[in-house]
């Protein structure tokens, strides 16, 4: 993105379901085109193919969008905490590459601030936010407390490990890990202080455990109706909870019809999350209000940026006057001692700065007013800034 001329500052954000390019530019249309062609080049995909899933926001809408993304209001699962980490990661990359500047720096810091406010001032993140959290909630509705419960983890995907970790933090004490390759089972078991078992031992383990998390890539059912039915009698009808994260399914659906056995697959868990989302609409409204507030604040700051070039040229003008005048009087000043010389230079500078200080404060104060441009023009004319600085914007 650095190579695109019309883009000032920029960063890439990629999460599980989106890729975003954040950039500042003076020529919006041109920059947009170049960024899209850059994306198509990076992804090795013709533009027409992804143009239907493209979205662009400008100015105020863009700021709002960034804030909403950071506070997870725009996520598939509203309130999920992972997104903020991903944004921080993207920003860290941008600072390393030095592609972010004044505006993006400020924008990202404000975004983190908004996310924090949303998290602490609303309850949006507290309810079931992720699949594993939903699974834990369900387990609690069945077992009341998970202390002393035993979990069997079959197969090892990232999701399954996350679910297992969630269960552990909620009191599960014993973990058994089964995998087709025993070495892998040993590795994963070490992570959880669990014990590895072979695939053939699953039937025997079903007598012992309370919760089973499955996520193998096996095309057929790993847990069959028959297998579970056999274990039920010996289990003395203690409830058995299957969490099936695998696609395709590992647990035969008919298992759910057995008494005291509950099977939830990934789609069921998604259903649970959606339900929670509906209940948290109220909190979402509150969160949106926080975002709005912060967007207004950011815009106000962004407006002050318009004043900056004028202030800079004002300072430069004064600085050049000081230099010119000092040079003129250099012959008279040469006779003074170094300390007297220094005092004279300090005096001239502080007089000049005092003179322009009030106009600068005044301009900054007008930054978010519609009449700002008029004040800027007057300032430029009064101080004759545009004649000295050829590149000042008109």
């Amino acid at each position, binding site marked *: 993105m650095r190579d695109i001329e019309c883009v000032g500052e920029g960063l890439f954000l990629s999460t599980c379901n989106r890729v975003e390019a954040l950039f500042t530019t003076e020529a919006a249309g041109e920059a947009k085109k170049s960024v899209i062609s850059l994306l198509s080049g990076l992804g090795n995909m013709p533009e027409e193919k992804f143009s239907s899933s493209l979205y662009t926001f400008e100015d105020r809408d863009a700021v709002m969008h960034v804030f909403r993304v950071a506070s997870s209001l725009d996520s598939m699962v509203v309130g999920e905490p992972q997104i903020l980490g991903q944004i921080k990661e993207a920003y860290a990359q941008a600072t390393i590459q030095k592609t972010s500047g004044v505006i993006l720096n400020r924008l990202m810091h404000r975004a983190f601030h908004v996310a924090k406010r949303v998290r602490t001032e609303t309850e949006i993140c507290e309810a079931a936010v992720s699949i594993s959290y939903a699974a834990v909630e369900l387990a609690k509705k069945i077992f009341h407390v998970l202390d002393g419960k035993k979990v069997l983890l079959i197969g090892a995907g990232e999701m399954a490990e996350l679910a297992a970790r969630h269960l552990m933090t909620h009191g599960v004490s014993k973990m058994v890990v089964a995998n087709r390759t025993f070495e892998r089972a040993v590795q994963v078991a070490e992570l959880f202080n669990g014990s590895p078992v072979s695939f053939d031992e699953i039937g025997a383990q079903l007598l012992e455990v309370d919760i089973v998390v499955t996520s193998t890539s096996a095309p057929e059912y790993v847990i069959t109706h028959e297998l579970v039915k056999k274990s039920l009698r010996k289990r*003395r009808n*203690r409830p058995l909870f299957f969490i099936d994260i695998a696609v395709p399914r590992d647990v035969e659906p008919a298992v759910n019809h057995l008494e005291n056995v509950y099977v*939830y697959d990934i789609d069921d868990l998604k259903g649970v999350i959606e*339900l929670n989302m509906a209940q948290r609409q109220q909190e979402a409204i509150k969160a949106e209000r926080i975002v709005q507030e912060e967007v207004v604040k950011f815009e106000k700051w962004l407006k002050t940026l318009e004043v900056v070039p004028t202030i800079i040229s004002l300072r430069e003008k004064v600085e050049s006057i000081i230099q010119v005048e000092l040079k003129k009087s250099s012959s008279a000043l040469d006779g003074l001692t170094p300390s007297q010389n220094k005092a004279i230079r300090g005096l001239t500078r502080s007089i000049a700065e005092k003179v322009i200080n009030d106009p600068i404060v005044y301009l900054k104060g007008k930054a978010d007013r519609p009449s700002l441009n008029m004040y800027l023009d007057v300032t430029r004319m009064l101080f004759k800034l545009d004649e000295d600085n050829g590149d000042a914007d008109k």
Partner: protein
Amino acid sequence: MIYLWFNMALFFELLATGGFVVYIVKQKKWVFRCSYWILVAGFVCHTIFLSYRYYSLGTAPVLDLKSALGFFAWSIICVYLIFQIKFRLMVLGSFVAPLAAFLMIISSAIPWVEGPVKPVFKSLWLTVHVGTVFIGNALFAIAFLAAIMYLIQEHQIKRKRLGSVYDRLPSLATLDSINYYSLIYGFPFLTLGMITGSIYAQYALGKYWQWDPKEVWSLITWIFYGALLHERRRAGKYCQGVSLDEGY
């Protein structure tokens, strides 16, 4: 004067029922707290009423259907209040209070019939018999309510319908242990009630056992609960339904 206490008990118990219904819908904790203390007030009135009746009749006030229903309602509330201390399960009140109030309404609809108490009823054995049997049955009533809640909740989880009902009902494990404790405490009370009942029968009628329908049904009920409890202990069965019976 005595009827004032009965009416106050009825009034408070109805009010508490209303409160508990509001609580289960609105899920506001203060509603529960109000309802709970109103129920306690109703219970206190009810206790005063029963004590007064006991004092004036000279025996347990359960000699006709009206008094028996009232006494049963009192027993259920009594057991509920004890359970509330142990389990702190707020939603149970929303099931118990309506049952107690329902019994009280039927009781209040039956007219007062005051007659002289036969001397045969004035026996401590009768009082102990009635007390234990009623407490036992009140515990079974709670077991029954917990079993119903369990079935509803289990149905929600099985069908994956995790809506407002699912939110309001407690976990399966909690409901199961309430059911279990109700049974395990209820059974000794019922047993004791049966024994004292037959002792009373010997004292009053000259025979321990007469094979009259009431006695036979009591025995069947007792065997039924015994079998249920045995099955639960043996198989660790998560109980799926307990029927309510008439044990007096």
